[in-house]
């Protein structure tokens, strides 16, 4: 009984969440509905989180359970091993923080009856995906997760953009599930062994395994946001209410990563050497494209959504490296790359949720998502500004926060690539490393823009001027995440050691234990090669920062002075003279965007005599949409238009169709030998 306790706790949690979803349908109009639903979600998530953490830290053996649900001859299989436990922890942590945030944020919800029933169901769907141990349960939970999140995306369905986002999301989600369905079909083989246990016991042939890997990359990649399958993500994630955006960006994409890892690292047999090339090439492109897209945005939530694409690229770089090392029989290097990927999964879920919460708090306070309408919020929302800054520093991979730790580990894995025997990888991996470095720099630029334009300077609109600090629940959730970001940044060794059982299960090796090393530093390979000590960096930053502040105040002036911001020497009363998000991104837009986005700037000059202001118009094209998705959509609608005629045949023609089909089938039967 005690052996399957964590699994039972998680499953009971999912069941309670589903019951809660049903309850929310009837409750939705009650005044306290939001508090009841989110409060219950907090309790369930917290209990499940503690159980998952205990399981992972205690390196408990895998637990299985079969319930008589679903397909009669198969049942619903559930299993909790180290990998599931880790992702369950990510899901529950995200769910806990989002529910706490929603206690405050949900009060402002205009249509609670469209959000409250789907929110717990969405959480339950994500939990069930990571626990599933057969293909039917996995796909059902996966589709349930997609549909409930779709319902949350279109919860504000009067906004035309949201409807389009929901439509694109629905199509891409079904496409991804189709790819996963085919992958599981290949893995199950002709005997139809749909349990993961059977797939593990009988790994597929090399060709089938490779096909399953490609299909998993397409299926899980479309959910995670791999370029070019990312198109739905920046539309759908911002459309949902902010706590749901945080869950979709921070947690649901990680569930997709889980699906990829489960299929490719465990069920598809031993990797061939070229798998990693596919994964690494796509991941490198994803990383840079994601951050470049983000730089072009001035909608705060959409910018964050594009950054998810970038971070998914970083995670997949780690996974691709792990595949490369695993295929070449270098388990310790593979364990390093795999740990880096999983650690970044955890870190990204923390700071992406934090940043979306911040965007949500700003949205509540001002009603604005467009950065061009914000500004100066640091004076009006100082606490939000502080935690948002922590999130920005973390996502920009600056020490001592957690984003740096995991990206540093990824770089350590990249630096091991010269030991790889194959020349293709020897050349490709450093190129990917260069892309990763470029994206890290661009991400920092992007968050300087996001933070500077949103929080610094002067307010650009009256709405930004009237902003007030957000409520204490939202602040609590953000501070919890900011604290965890700092903790994971200064004590990465703790998290790396906790990931050891996952590595042992998936790779067959683990990184050296980190907790015993001096000064809590991390040493991925050997002390002579490289080491990083987050705590020392933190202490140094704190000390030098305080010393500098003290020196300035002592030597200059103790008084706080206020002066006009960004006036370039010419104080102008209009806030429109400040840097805007567009103008900040202009240099990068000119360097990269002219080819990648076909960016064109035109000056819209009024005719003589007209008193309106001249405008600089920037024209951006999403080439991936223009060259891949638009022709595809046009082709499908052309075919559908042709087939439409079939609906308007005469009765005799319909009969002839049936007759013709019968005769053709009989002919096939006659000719078939």
């Amino acid at each position: 009984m005690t052996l399957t306790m964590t699994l039972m706790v998680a499953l009971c949690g999912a069941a309670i969440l589903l019951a809660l979803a049903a309850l929310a349908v009837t409750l939705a109009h009650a005044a306290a509905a939001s508090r009841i639903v989110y409060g219950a979600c907090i309790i369930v998530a917290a209990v499940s989180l503690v159980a998952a953490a205990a399981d992972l830290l205690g390196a408990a053996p895998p637990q299985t359970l079969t319930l008589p649900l679903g397909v009669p001859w198969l049942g619903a299989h559930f299993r909790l091993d180290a990998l599931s436990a880790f992702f369950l922890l990510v899901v529950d942590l995200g769910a806990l923080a989002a529910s706490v945030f929603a206690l405050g944020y949900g009060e402002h919800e205009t249509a609670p009856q469209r959000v409250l029933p789907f929110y717990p169901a969405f959480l339950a769907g994500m939990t069930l995906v990571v626990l599933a141990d057969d293909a039917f349960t996995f796909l059902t939970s996966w589709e349930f997760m997609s549909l409930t999140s779709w319902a949350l995306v279109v919860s504000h369905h009067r906004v035309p953009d949201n409807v389009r986002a929901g439509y694109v999301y629905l199509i891409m989600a079904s496409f991804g599930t189709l790819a996963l369905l085919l992958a599981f079909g290949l893995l199950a083989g002709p005997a139809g062994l749909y349990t993961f246990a059977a797939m593990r016991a009988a790994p597929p042939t090399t060709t089938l395994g490779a096909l399953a890997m490609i299909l998993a990359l397409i299926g899980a990649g479309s959910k995670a946001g791999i370029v070019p399958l990312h198109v739905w993500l920046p539309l759908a994630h911002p459309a949902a209410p902010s706590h749901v955006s945080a869950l979709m960006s921070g947690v649901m994409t990680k569930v997709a990563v889980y699906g990829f890892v489960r299929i490719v690292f465990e069920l598809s047999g031993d990797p061939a050497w070229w798998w990693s090339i596919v994964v690494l090439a796509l991941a490198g492109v994803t990383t840079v494209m994601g951050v470049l897209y983000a730089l072009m945005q001035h909608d705060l939530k959409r910018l964050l959504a594009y950054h998810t694409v970038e971070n998914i690229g970083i995670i997949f770089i780690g996974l691709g490296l792990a595949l490369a090392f695993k295929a070449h029989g270098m388990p310790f290097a593979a364990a390093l790359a795999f740990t880096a990927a999983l650690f970044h999964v955890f870190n990204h879920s923390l700071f992406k949720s934090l940043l979306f919460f911040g965007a949500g708090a700003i949205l509540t306070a001002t009603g604005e998502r467009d950065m061009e309408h914000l500004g100066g919020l640091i004076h009006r929302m100082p606490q939000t500004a502080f935690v948002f800054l922590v999130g920005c520093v973390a996502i920009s991979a600056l020490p001592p926060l957690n984003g740096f730790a995991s990206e540093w580990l990824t770089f350590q894995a990249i630096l091991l690539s010269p030991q790889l025997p194959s020349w293709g990888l020897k050349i490709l991996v450093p190129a990917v490393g260069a892309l990763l470095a470029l994206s890290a720099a661009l991400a920092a630029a992007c968050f300087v823009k996001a933070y500077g334009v949103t929080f610094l300077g002067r307010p650009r609109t009256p709405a930004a001027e009237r902003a007030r600090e957000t409520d204490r629940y939202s602040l609590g959730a953000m501070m919890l995440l900011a604290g965890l970001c700092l903790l994971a940044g200064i004590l990465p060794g703790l998290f790396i050691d906790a990931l050891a059982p996952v590595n042992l299960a998936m790779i067959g090796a683990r990184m050296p234990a980190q907790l015993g090393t001096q000064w809590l530093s991390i040493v991925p390979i050997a002390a002579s090669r490289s080491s990083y000590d987050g705590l020392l960096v933190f202490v140094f930053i704190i000390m030098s920062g305080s010393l500098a502040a003290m020196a300035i105040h002592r030597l200059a002036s103790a008084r706080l002075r206020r002066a006009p911001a960004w006036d370039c020497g010419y104080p102008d009363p209009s806030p429109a003279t400040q840097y805007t998000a567009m103008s900040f991104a202009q240099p990068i837009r000119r360097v990269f965007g002219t080819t990648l986005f076909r960016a064109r700037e035109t000056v819209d000059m009024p005719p003589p005599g007209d008193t309106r202001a001249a405008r600089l118009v920037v024209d951006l094209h999403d080439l991936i949409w223009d060259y891949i998705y638009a022709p595809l959509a046009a082709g499908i609608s052309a075919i559908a238009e042709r087939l439409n005629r079939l609906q308007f045949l005469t009765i005799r023609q319909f009969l002839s169709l049936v007759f013709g089909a019968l005769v053709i089938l009989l002919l096939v039967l006659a000719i078939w030998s």
Partner: protein
Amino acid sequence: MSKIDFDVAHLLAGSLVLISFLELYQDRLYSLLNVYTLHALTLAASVAWQAFVQDAPHLYITAVIALTFKAIVIPVALHRIIVKLGIHRQIDKVVGSGSTMLAGMGLVALSMVVMLRVTQEADPLAREDLAFALSVILLGLLMMVTRHNAVSQVVGFMSLENGLVLAATGAKGMPLVVEISIAFSVLIAFIVIGIFLFRIRERFDTVDVQALDRFRGERR
């Protein structure tokens, strides 16, 4: 099974196919009905012979049902419908007789090839019976496809169903329940179609189903 049993069963099933060809050739409604009656009579004889050969008394009931409903009730009712509608002078053909007959021959050849190949282990009587039955079914479908008039389409449907009964009785051990339910479903289909014929006629002044397409009010 003695040789004479086999030969008679073969003869009856073969004549059923031949009569299907006769049906295809008829372009006047009265003569079509007459041939259909012959079709149903032959079916009844075939079923009765099967009952005798297989020593299965319940098949006699099937034969009686076939005789009463298919050879008497339905032709008489259709006859009255034709009189009532006053369409006995109409000629009904979409495709010429020659090409229809050729297509029919192709279908019979196809069903022979398919059946003889698929049922190699089966009892030879059942095997040939099934081949003939499939031919009758396909010819009935062909008739439905090549006719405009709703009455001829009904006849095509009925002879298709005759093929089904032939197949069912050829196989040993088929329970009576199945046959009775088939017979009743055909009767109900017949009643429904009959009512529809009158409704169509009331609305559109014709039983030519092409008129329906014009009146659907949809884009073609």
